[in-house]
């Protein structure tokens, strides 16, 4: 038997070597299997000099979805994006009960694998790998881990990552084989052949039918939505979104960026924190900040709320007298002046005042830095006619906030006090034994 002539040119060993090289050839795709979150501007940069449609769409994308996670384009990127997105979404909910429920649900899908004739001794290693990621997620939640680094590490371990992806592929394939009526119409080969040649294989990229089946059969049961944003040459200034899970419109959503032949994960901006603290802090911040005072920026309304405070307006130092009072003194009382005409101690002993002696601690996270400044310079002390006016927010009147009322005992040591010797309208207080 003679070899064909083209085979004689090379020795058997050389042929074997070349065949081996050819068999083992894998395109060299750089980067990790799953990247950390990065700015979507990188994608916009990639397309900056490309087709204007792409340039426009990617610029818009960088604003609507500021963060991206890049998947390695090794033939599994779509599968990996969904599997990673699933675990990341689950982790972000920080709900151990839900993780446990999901673990139970995913394991219950083993019955689908059995129904389509998969052998347990073959698929159990894939299920184990998935179960291990669930366990890691629970541990991470339990340990209060801040970010998804553990998931990135887990998915960058190629062997385990392949096992998890194989598990997701098998669940999808079983789902499709058990629900052929939903998918056969979209497929040209018979569904069984499609599953064995496109879904169950180790390196076949997911297509639209497969992705829909993955969402229907595996992801939707978690209550997570899946949305694809298509970056293509179609009309429009932004990528075209497509909701794959119309049944889960309001839940957590995994967002995928599709570019022909490749999937990555996209993230919308974080919603503004639903935390009232900064607003409350702003109140404190204002009362502890002298600057607007010096500029006379605050004004004071004697409003119904204020009038309703017992004894407040009854005091000669307040009200129609035009005497200024400081809402600031609670934080930064004026130093005791040795020359001060000492007023009788009971002068401001109103019920409110005893309350006000509980000095509010400025919150640590006050947005306006608390200025540990001295009292306002005397030169800027407002004169009587345009005396500082205070506008009290109704919130201040709420019982739990009343301790932040500007009526505080150190006020009597402030030059804003008419009884203070540095006040422009200084009027010594006369002790009247029968007064009050």
């Amino acid at each position, binding site marked *: 038997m003679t070899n064909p002539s083209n085979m004689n040119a090379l020795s058997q060993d050389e042929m074997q070597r070349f065949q081996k090289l050819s068999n083992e050839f894998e395109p060299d795709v750089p980067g990790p299997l799953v990247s950390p979150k990065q*700015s979507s501007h990188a994608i916009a940069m990639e397309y900056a000099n490309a087709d204007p449609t792409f340039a426009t769409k990617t610029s818009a994308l960088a604003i609507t979805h500021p963060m991206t996670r890049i998947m390695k384009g090794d033939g599994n990127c779509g599968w990996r994006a969904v599997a990673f997105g699933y675990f990341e979404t689950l982790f972000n909910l920080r709900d151990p009960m839900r993780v446990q429920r999901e673990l139970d649900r995913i394991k219950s899908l083993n019955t689908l694998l059995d129904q389509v004739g998969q052998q347990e001794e073959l698929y159990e290693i894939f299920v184990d790998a998935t179960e291990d990621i669930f366990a890691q997620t629970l541990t991470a939640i339990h340990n209060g881990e801040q970010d998804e680094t553990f998931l990135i590490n887990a998915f960058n371990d190629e062997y385990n990552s392949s096992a998890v992806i194989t598990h997701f592929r098998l669940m999808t394939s079983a789902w499709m084989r058990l629900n052929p009526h939903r998918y056969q119409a979209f497929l040209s080969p018979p569904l069984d052949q499609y599953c064995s040649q496109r879904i169950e294989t180790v390196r076949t990229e997911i297509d639209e039918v497969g992705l829909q089946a993955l969402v229907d059969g595996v992801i939707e049961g978690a209550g997570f939505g899946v949305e694809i944003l298509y970056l293509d040459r179609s009309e429009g200034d932004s990528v075209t979104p497509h909701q794959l899970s119309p049944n889960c419109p309001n839940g957590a959503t995994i967002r995928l960026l599709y570019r022909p032949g490749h999937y990555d994960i996209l993230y919308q901006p974080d919603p503004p924190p639903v935390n009232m603290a900064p607003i409350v802090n702003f109140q404190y911040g204002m009362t502890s900040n002298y600057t607007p005072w010096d500029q006379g920026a605050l004004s004071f309304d004697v409003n119904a709320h204020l009038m309703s405070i017992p004894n407040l307006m009854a005091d000669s130092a307040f009200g129609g007298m035009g005497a200024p009072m400081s809402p600031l003194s609670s934080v930064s009382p004026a130093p005791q002046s040795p020359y001060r005409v000492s007023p009788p101690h009971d002068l401001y002993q109103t019920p409110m005042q005893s309350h006000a002696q509980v000095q509010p601690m400025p919150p640590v996270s006050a947005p306006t830095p608390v200025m540990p400044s001295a009292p306002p310079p005397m030169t800027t002390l407002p004169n009587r006619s345009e005396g500082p006016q205070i506008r009290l927010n109704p919130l201040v009147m709420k019982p739990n906030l009343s301790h932040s009322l500007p009526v505080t005992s150190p006020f009597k040591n402030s030059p804003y006090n008419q009884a203070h010797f540095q006040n422009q309208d200084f009027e010594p207080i006369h002790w009247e034994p029968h007064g009050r």
Partner: protein
Amino acid sequence: MDYTMEDTQNSAPDALEATKLNSSTQRNDTQSVTKRLQAELMQLMLSPSPGISAFPDADGNLLSWTATITGPTETPYDGLTLKLSFAFPNNYPYSPPTVLFKTPIYHPNVDFSGRICLDILKDKWSAVYNVQSVLLSLQSLLGEPNNASPLNAQAAEIWDSDQEEFKRHVLARHKDLDDE
């Protein structure tokens, strides 16, 4: 932006972590491959399929096996015993094993070095295939060659034109290997 900073801060330790993990990951992978192959061996021994057998090589390395297929009846290979070698990659089953005919064989989809052209051993490989399913596929390939993409064009031609002639070529090429 806040996350950008977070990510930059995280990236360096992550990279370090990844390199540190690699060596231990490698070892775990080998353990996983071994575990999987042991399970396959167990299954082959407990529920053998007629006409096929496989066993790890005597060198104690579970990553290389020798298998045999008995030629199916009503094919030109009827009664012949064909030996094959399996070499499993380190990431098995996420890459297919390299399978070669050791016994010289005349077949449209096998070349003269014993290399096989079969899609499930290449891009259609699935992690749920195993030694048994590969051997069963090869057994059926003996009776149903894929003449659309032959490695041995002459064999494909003769298969289609003259079955008697084909069988003569098969028997001429066949040579039983000594049992080790």
